[in-house]
């Protein structure tokens, strides 16, 4: 039986879709069978980031409304040998086309066939959010080092803690700019982790290559040498239970790792 992980944030545009695509890719690179599920109905874009847009035939709403069977709607990523699939969101329907029970049933079905189901959640705390968390057993909250994003992350963590079927959520701090953080112009990793008091599962640098790669439909995690790619691969390894030290984003600052180590909560 697979594990279903929802990637959520509260605030929009902090990197949920990017994170979903890259964690999925990195897990597939580790040989796991992965299904990505885009629940951002009406605003789908996980397919674009994965470069799979032109292969879509059916979508999530078609599956829910039984116009097709689940396997028919899954788009296979040919770069991976039968390991990585995407269930795209519908572009035309609105998010009320699907309810939580239907979502849960669908995810439970996918769990039979895949090691990991990575669920990309829409921004906000409405029906779309409820659908995305309905079938999940784990959650990753993505934030950026900005006060407003951290505030929304806090709100989402509060909601996730009420979901009895979901384990205590883990935190990713995305789009870190080491020099700003070092100068105190950005909230630092320790500050954010202390404030939210949940386990940190990874930090990802802000890197232009991430945007470039997404625009080419080739997630950055495919690139073995990029700093953000390594971050996503590390996160995947931590999900698999490995204990991987936190990336040092700046050479001159060896303190970060020792300070942060204690926040790791890898299972």
């Amino acid at each position, binding site marked *: 039986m697979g594990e279903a992980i929802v990637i959520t944030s509260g605030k929009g545009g902090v990197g949920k879709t990017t994170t979903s695509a890259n964690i999925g890719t990195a897990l597939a690179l580790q040989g796991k069978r992965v299904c990505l599920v885009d629940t951002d109905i009406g605003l789908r874009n996980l397919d674009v980031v994965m470069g799979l847009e032109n292969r879509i035939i059916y979508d999530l709403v078609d599956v829910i409304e039984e116009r097709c069977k689940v396997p028919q709607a899954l788009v296979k990523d040919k770069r991976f040998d039968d390991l990585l699939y995407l269930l795209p969101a519908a572009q035309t329907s609105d998010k009320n086309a699907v309810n939580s029970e239907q979502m849960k049933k669908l995810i439970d079905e996918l769990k039979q066939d895949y090691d990991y189901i990575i669920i990309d959640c829409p921004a906000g705390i409405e029906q779309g959010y409820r659908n995305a968390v309905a079938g999940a057993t784990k959650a990753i909250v993505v934030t950026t080092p900005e006060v407003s994003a951290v*505030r*929304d992350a*806090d*709100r989402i963590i*509060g*909601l996730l803690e009420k979901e009895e079927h979901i384990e205590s959520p883990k935190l990713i701090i995305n789009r870190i700019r080491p020099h700003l953080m070092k100068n105190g112009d950005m909230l630092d990793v320790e500050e954010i982790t202390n*404030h939210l*008091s949940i386990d940190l599962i990874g930090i990802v640098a802000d890197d232009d290559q991430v945007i470039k790669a997404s625009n080419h439909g080739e997630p950055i995690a495919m690139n073995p040498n990029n700093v953000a790619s390594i971050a996503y691969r590390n996160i995947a390894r931590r999900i698999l239970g490995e204990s991987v030290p936190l990336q040092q984003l700046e050479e001159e600052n060896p303190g970060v790792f020792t300070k942060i180590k204690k926040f790791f909560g890898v299972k």
Partner: protein
Amino acid sequence: MNRKQNVTIKGTKDGLTLHLDDVCSYEELKKELNQKLTESSRSSEDRLISVMVHTGNRYLSEAQEEEIKELIRQKKNLVVESVRSNVITKNEAEKLKQDNEILSIARIIRSGQVLEVPGDLLLIGDVNPGGTVKAGGNIFIMGALKGIAHAGINGNKEAVISASVMKPTQLRISDSLTRAPDDNVEEGKREMECAYIDEDNQITIDRLQVLMHIRPNLSKLQGGF
């Protein structure tokens, strides 16, 4: 002829005290009370006289209590100061207990969450920005207060708020309110602080240690040590 009195009236320097018998029927009691009051209110004085009512071991429902008060008020210069009874209902006792209880809760109150307790609150955790804690009594926060805390929500102006790290967005005590200064300097100060309403009716923040002087009632220890 020497019938037992159901209503005894005593004059004190503060007014009148009415002792109501707790064995006779309520109807009998009302009748006799009315009679006695009519007899004794013939005095020509028009100074207001305050009346204390003792009902002994009789429990008066709210409606009955109101009826008795009304009966007394109808006599032109009497005002009811208080109605006291030796007994309360289980519900009232339960509420009294809750109102005087310290509830300890180990949790982080996150953005969008509200925690409310009837008595005192001991929070083992933080209140994050956007989060709110409310208490009928005092609030003691072992972690950081970064959101809103409202003590004495039912009007208790004596209530206090204290926190290990006092960085609230807003503090409220009873119906007074204060918000964080716009410039949040003062980093590095790492001392437990408290907030209370001072003599000028303003919320003041001070070192925790001042509480023992300005709110001695916070000590619940009997007998000393």
